[in-house]
């Protein structure tokens, strides 16, 4: 059974600080996705990474896929209150496989 673990589970920071969220797996991914979920809404896809060592940037967000395809990280630079939400990583482990979600990281950015 594949297990996807995120850390930290909770993060409370001040506006302007940097942060990193980690997603680790017991098995090699086929692909890894990051979602953001705001209170009262469903998750929204931010990015998909598929190649070991891949780095993608989305404004102040940087997503990295580990070389061994068993880990990923999300780095936010100069966090803003609008970044507040639940960040979820989700992985597929084989072609045609279903998404397995991590437990999420609850981020709170205080002004």
């Amino acid at each position, binding site marked *: 059974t594949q297990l*996807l673990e*995120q850390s930290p*589970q909770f993060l409370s920071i001040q506006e302007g600080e940097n942060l990193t969220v980690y997603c680790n797996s017991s098995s090699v991914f*086929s*692909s890894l996705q990051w979602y953001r979920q705001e209170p*009262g*809404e*469903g*998750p*929204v*896809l931010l990015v*998909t990474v*598929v190649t070991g060592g891949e780095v993608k940037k989305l404004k102040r967000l940087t997503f990295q896929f580990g070389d061994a395809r068993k880990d990923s990280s999300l780095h936010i630079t100069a966090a803003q209150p609008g970044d507040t939400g639940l960040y*979820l990583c*989700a992985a*597929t482990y084989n*072609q*045609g*496989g*279903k*998404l397995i*979600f*991590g*437990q*999420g990281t609850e981020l709170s950015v205080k002004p």
Partner: protein
Amino acid sequence: NAGVTQTPKFRVLKTGQSMTLLCAQDMNHEYMYWYRQDPGMGLRLIHYSVGEGTTAKGEVPDGYNVSRLKKQNFLLGLESAAPSQTSVYFCASSYAPGTVQETQYFGPGTRLLVL
């Protein structure tokens, strides 16, 4: 386009009661999914459908049934609700299923409280 919609938004049930959650999508997606979200546990797949008239079990299917009579609708049923089914339920649909380009589009969720 409305995307993925869910009804109802919130419901309170007594133990043993039944109910049906409705999911509708207007994006002509083949795949549809039902998840439940509980604190500290992320999203867990209940059932999914790869097309009209087909359904399959996910990670936590016990106590739930589903139907996909029309391509745009995916229904989740609870025949005899239990307090352990208190959760937030999300429906999702996707194109390019099973590929690395797959994107799942989620509805706004249904909050269910079973007393």
